């Protein structure tokens, strides 16, 4: 099925230069492209659901609060994959603002900017000024570390953080930990947390009740998705060993500009889409770079994901909803949804 989709995209890519889609048309199609994941904590178990859809409110019955994850805004990127990333970020913000309940806060899982330039961060801040949720937590991506090892990023978004920008906070009984795995990367390696941060993490979690729901967020995935493209973190095993004893652990990442998820015991891993441009599925392209798709295909690769943790059944249902399709469409041509059993201690 992935091959079919790739053939279609290849076909379309050949027409790309002659398809007569002008910038206005492109922006129009991109109007749906803003993405984000809305998470509801219900009884301490995260549930994520689509933005600004007329959701079934029962999904939040007994829910404690909601928060939104956005990722990979890449402000400053201006190549064909998306000539106007600021506009698609604005679309994501508009969707947040259109939600019936304002989320308690937003988490941005990194690659705020394309080149760590002050102007890029300024633009991001301008757009975020208009969001309904005023509390925003950030972790940097590798694109945010390009000036003096992240000095610009830290100056702006590093308040209250340690080292290269890690921190933790509590919200209504849930413990959130923002980790940085994009600093001091070693040749030939993938993401890296580093000794100092790991020590801090172990200490940060010490003494907390095992029934405390934990949410870890970092830019590069904390599980190995595709080593050839650097999609993983070399020393994440150690970090994950510190959260093993907790009853509910959710890991939120970005970096790969597509949704991937995994459940391992009591730990659920999720990666978010980008608000800027998609990237190819592992191994389906020569490299992990921005994936160009024709304007009318873009809505299929930028979208929102409906994830419901069903507390009663202790199961997790995932349905992908690409923005451009009517109803729920399938990811990679597969089945419309899949269920996992996540065992909760």
């Amino acid at each position, binding site marked *: 099925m992935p091959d079919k989709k790739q053939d279609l995209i290849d076909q379309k890519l050949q027409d790309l230069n002659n398809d007569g889609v002008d910038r206005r048309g492109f922006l129009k199609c991109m109007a749906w492209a803003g993405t984000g994941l809305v998470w509801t904590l219900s009884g301490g178990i995260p549930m994520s659901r689509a933005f600004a859809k007329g959701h079934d409110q029962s999904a939040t019955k007994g829910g404690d609060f909601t928060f939104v994850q956005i990722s990979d805004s890449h402000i400053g990127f201006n190549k064909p*994959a998306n000539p106007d990333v600021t506009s698609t970020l604005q679309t994501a913000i508009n969707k947040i603002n259109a939600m019936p309940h304002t989320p308690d806060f937003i988490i941005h899982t990194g690659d705020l900017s394309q080149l760590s330039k002050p102007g890029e961060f300024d633009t991001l801040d301008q757009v975020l000024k208009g969001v309904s949720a005023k509390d925003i937590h950030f972790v940097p991506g*590798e694109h945010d570390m*390009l000036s003096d090892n992240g000095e610009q990023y830290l100056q702006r978004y590093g308040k209250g953080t340690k080292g290269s920008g890690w921190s933790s906070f509590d919200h209504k009984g849930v413990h959130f930990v923002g980790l940085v795995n994009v600093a001091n990367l*070693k*040749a030939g390696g*993938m993401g890296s947390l580093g000794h100092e941060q790991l020590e801090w993490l172990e200490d940060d979690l010490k003494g907390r009740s095992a029934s405390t729901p934990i949410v870890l967020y970092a830019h590069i995935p904390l599980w190995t998705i595709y080593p*050839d493209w650097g999609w993983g973190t070399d020393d994440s095993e150690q970090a994950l060993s510190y959260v093993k004893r907790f009853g509910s652990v959710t890991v939120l990442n970005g970096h790969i500009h597509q949704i991937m998820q995994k459940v391992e015991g009591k730990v659920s891993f999720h990666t978010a889409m980008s608000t800027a441009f998609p990237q190819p599925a592992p191994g389906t392209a020569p*490299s*992990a770079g921005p994936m160009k798709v024709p304007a009318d295909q873009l809505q299929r690769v930028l979208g929102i994901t409906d994830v419901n943790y069903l507390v009663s059944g202790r199961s997790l249902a995932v349905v992908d909803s690409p923005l451009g399709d009517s109803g729920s469409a399938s990811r990679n041509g597969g089945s419309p949804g899949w269920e996992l059993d996540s065992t909760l201690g």
Partner: protein
Amino acid sequence: MTRKHVWILGLATPVMIAMLLLFAGSPSVTANDQPSAANAEVKIDNFVFGPETITVPVGATVTWTNKDDIPHTSVSTEGVFKSKVLDTDEKFSYTFTKAGTYSYYCTIHPKMTGKVVVQ
């Protein structure tokens, strides 16, 4: 011109031409297979340094050009050289004055590695 001058010119010209050719970076006349280019290019594209290993003579200048649509860097693992962040079409050059093997990588995408062999 006097005949003498013409004669000198006739002799001097081919000599000058020969010297120009010798100094213009023409192939080495020695028998061994020393690498000959005084400058070498590495093209960065699709998250790859191409060629991954490049061999140059001492004193050669290597120029990295980023043809990718994503920024990259070229940084020596031993701290010998370090490019700024190269956006699309930006270049970085380094002249290798000492023989040796120089491993480098992209600090943004560390899976990208390369080697310059200077001999």
